[in-house]
């Protein structure tokens, strides 16, 4: 991270398979993701439009020890567990006002580990 950031924590009750229906992005902040209680899946899309395109969605498996920093403007879903509930951490400048989930275009995607 190359800027000031807030520290965040997310909880998910779902593991794979799950559906990606909505994604959010923030033009003003990079975002770091790291695993919490176990492996996590992070779905991202590099769509230069007002909604993520289903064809652009890529899902990555993060193992404990892995962390990623996504660039400003990259669409992302909340992380999911691989086999059930988990938690994860993120660093970001986002707040309640700055990001909204937007339905993805081109259909709902199923992510399976």
């Amino acid at each position: 991270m190359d800027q000031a950031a807030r520290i965040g924590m997310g909880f998910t009750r779902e593991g794979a398979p799950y559906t990606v229906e909505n994604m959010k992005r923030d033009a003003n902040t990079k975002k770091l993701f790291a695993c919490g209680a176990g492996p996590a899946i992070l779905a991202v899309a590099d769509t230069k439009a007002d909604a993520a395109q289903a064809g652009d969605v890529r899902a990555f498996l993060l193992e404990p020890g892995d962390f990623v920093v996504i660039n400003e403007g990259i669409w992302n879903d909340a992380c999911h567990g691989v086999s059930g509930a988990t938690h994860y951490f993120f660093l970001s400048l986002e707040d309640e006002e700055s990001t909204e989930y937007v339905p993805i275009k081109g259909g709902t995607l199923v992510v399976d580990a």
Partner: protein
Amino acid sequence: MVRPIKITEENFKAFGQYSNLQRENRLSGVKYEEYISAEKYVYQPMRFGMTICKNEKRFYVDSMERHLTTEEILICGDKPIVLSVADSNPYGEPQAEDILVFYMEPGDVVMLAKGIWHDACQAVEADAFYYFMAHGTGKGDEIKWHAIQPAPVAVEI
């Protein structure tokens, strides 16, 4: 012998800042719960690190380090850990009588103020990991471990 105590904003004030992310701002998620700190912790570029620690029901704090040029952020990772700190003179040596030990659970975040003596964390059970973030050179006295004076302190979980 020292026993760990539950960490609170009040009792950690002398060492820096404590917060629990689940008591901070909730982001509007549809199917998820996401919480984010109201405050920006990372004022300058920092490295992001991870420590895997083991549990010993009774262990000795025999040395500590402190950083004069950077705060250090500790984020409890997968399972509970204990953190040993001392508010002794940062230009002297860490003193046994100043040592306090705090429990941290997933969701707990602390920012150690510059100059606060601290040991590596220990797992409460089996093993656990935590993340840390710090800016600094990572050189010389900034990362030198100093022996506890006059003698190591036993911690019983």
